[in-house]
């Protein structure tokens, strides 16, 4: 692999799909050990078009369709990685990753440890996740907590095109297995939770300015989206935009942190913020019980107990499967977040 001193190149306007596609393109161009595999990712370019054009450019042995077997996809990715390749499997929807769980949890995540570093599995599993598209319970789930719970697996969730590209390249270059969740609700434009309003395309937002070439956004570093004094909001993925919308609407002087990586987690940034604001609301779309919010809440309590002026609140999806028609009553939208902020800010 040639670590070129190339520049990030010219900046173009990209939505999230284009940014992810560009990340794959850049990674594949720099390192011929990278391979993209998954259901419908080859000729068709993926059901969300994230791999469009890559097979044509890099050939069928580097970008190829697979049998419909998530277990097989992740299993062969591990095998290819142990040979020395750098596979980037796509799981068509996060809801369909479960057949591949054993290969990811028992194998990819533990290979380095159990072989004392003799074998490793530098794979990056990309998968669209989250709801808000009327996909019903099998096209809407947010299972990130299951993966964050597994030692040996890094969990990354971008919230905008610029980060998506930089984080994905960093994930691919990382020598450990990474699961890369793509919030599909915001592929085409950020979503503030107001489902009855038209969505603005990414082109209207600064984060759609994405360099053509190589750059990375380091794993394990959160992003301070907005500085504020009164309360800290911890969010990732689609919920970053819901939180930003609520801040704009309510005028609450909240500090908004986009975690970007759940494992490893940027505890430092979180702690500094909560120590400053004294209040914290944690937001995710996933179900509540055992969700990543519980981990965040515990960490904040451990590190910031003496600064806290109110209990940490969690704003989450309900502990039910993701319903089809009641999607918007399930989704932790602006009302749920506003109510929680009001409670936290009360005293």
């Amino acid at each position, binding site marked *: 692999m040639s670590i070129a001193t190339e520049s990030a190149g010219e900046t173009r306007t990209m939505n999230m799909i284009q940014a992810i596609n560009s990340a794959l393109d850049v990674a594949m161009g720099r390192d011929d050990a990278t391979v993209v595999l998954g259901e419908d990712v080859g000729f068709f370019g993926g059901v969300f078009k994230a791999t469009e054009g890559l097979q044509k450019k890099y050939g069928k042995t580097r970008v190829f369709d697979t049998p*419909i077997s998530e277990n097989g996809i992740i299993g062969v990715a591990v095998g290819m990685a142990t040979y020395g390749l750098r596979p980037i499997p796509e799981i068509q929807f996060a809801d369909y990753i479960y057949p591949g769980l054993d290969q990811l949890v028992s194998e990819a995540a533990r290979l380095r440890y159990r072989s004392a570093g003799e074998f490793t599995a530098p794979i990056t599993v990309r998968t669209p996740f989250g709801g808000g598209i*009327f996909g019903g319970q099998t096209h809407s789930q947010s299972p990130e907590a299951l993966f964050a719970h597994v030692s040996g697996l890094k969990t990354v969730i971008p919230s905008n095109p610029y980060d998506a590209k930089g984080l994905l390249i960093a994930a691919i270059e990382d020598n450990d297995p990474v699961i890369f969740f793509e919030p599909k609700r915001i592929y085409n434009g950020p979503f503030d939770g107001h489902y009855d309003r038209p969505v603005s395309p990414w082109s209207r937002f600064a984060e759609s300015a994405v360099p053509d070439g190589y750059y990375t956004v380091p794993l394990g570093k959160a992003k301070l989206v907005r500085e504020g004094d009164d309360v800290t909001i911890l969010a990732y993925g689609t919920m970053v935009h819901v939180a930003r919308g609520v801040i704009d609407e309510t005028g609450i002087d909240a500090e908004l942190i986009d975690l970007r990586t759940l494992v490893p987690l940027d505890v430092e940034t979180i702690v500094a913020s909560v120590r400053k604001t004294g209040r914290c609301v944690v937001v995710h779309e996933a179900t509540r019980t055992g969700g990543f919010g519980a981990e965040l809440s515990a960490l904040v309590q451990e590190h910031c107990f003496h600064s806290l002026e109110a209990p940490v609140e969690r704003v989450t999806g309900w*502990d039910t499967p993701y319903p089809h028609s009641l999607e918007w009553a399930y989704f932790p939208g602006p009302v749920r977040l506003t109510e929680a902020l009001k409670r936290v800010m009360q005293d």
Partner: protein
Amino acid sequence: MTGRNLPPLSLHIPEPDFRPGDEVDYSDFEMPVAGAVARPATETAPAAIRDMSYVMIRVLDDEGRAQGMWDPRLAPETLLKMLRSMALTRAFDDRLYRAQRQGKTSFYMKCTGEEATSVAAAHALAYDDMCFPSYRQQGLLIARDWPIVDMINQIYSNRADRLKGRQLPIMYSAREANFFSISGNLTTQYPQAVGWAMASASRGDTRIAAAWCGEGSTAEGDFHSAMTFAAVYRAPVILNVINNQWAISSFSGFAGAEATTFAARAIGYGIAGLRVDGNDALAVYAATQWAADRARNNHGPTLIEHFTYRAEGHSTSDDPTKYRSADEGVKWPLGDPIARLKKHVIGLGIWDEERHAAMDKELAEMVRAAQKEAEKNGILADGLKQSFDSMFEDVFEVMPDHLRDQQKQMLEERRAAGI
């Protein structure tokens, strides 16, 4: 070290014969002769009929005549009922597909060209046999005379939806019709069907189970677990593979079809395997009947590959012109299942073009009326049709406290939002 003097290895990646824009040439497709395949006794051991996995059972010939030992010799009423159910399935698909396009619901999936694989199978099973379908077996419900208005209510997630708006459109569940709740996760129904059949056998019941999955779905581990369990316990189950050549954009070669048939998957497990012309309703009926007899008489499971073609896109979210040649469907050598059965019954003198046209009109009108009826209960696009409370029901039999708290919080939230 061996291999030093060999040319370098190369990785094989399957590629379909035709892509968008290609003119399709099926001239090397060898059309199996209708009536040519012998029908073994239903108690025959799987090892004695391995060749059945590589031939194709066809009953209807080009002239629409029934040929050979597999002709199920059905009564005129049965033939006409099958024809009607297939035509209704198609009319239903056409109308509900359009409803999605009109924005009335979020999603729809057609089974155009594959109607025989579920309708004829349903007719060959007993009504109380348990069906474990995939998402493309609406023909089972229609053949079992399930009210189409109920199906449309589900598609609209409206007030009358028996599934309370929880499921993606077409993911039906109809226990009274012995039709299992459809999962969006591929092939999970396969081991479940085997388990149901094992339970039926262990209880000395007479009912059998049948499952359906697409050829693409045979790659899932669940397919193979199901086959192993079915073989080990000689479960009274029929495992149907609908080989419609495509799995979204992936042709059947990505499920292993370059090397062998899907029916031949049965051989390694020691299960009886049949391969049928899935566009030939009589062949589908006959194969299902054979497998059902076999299962009901304790001779164990059968895997049936139905060779057919997905005439339309995968779903309303798909555009097949992006990955396959439109010419493929046009020239599909095994024809259209409805046209072929129609030709057969006309040849028998029990049907004619006028009656067929009248039936099509009647069915289109019937679907239209059912749609209107369902729309009285609302459509998805009108907004939230279910009671908010219902979202928390059925997670468990008895609602635990944490869900009760969340339910309360949700209702307060609605009030705060003025909804």
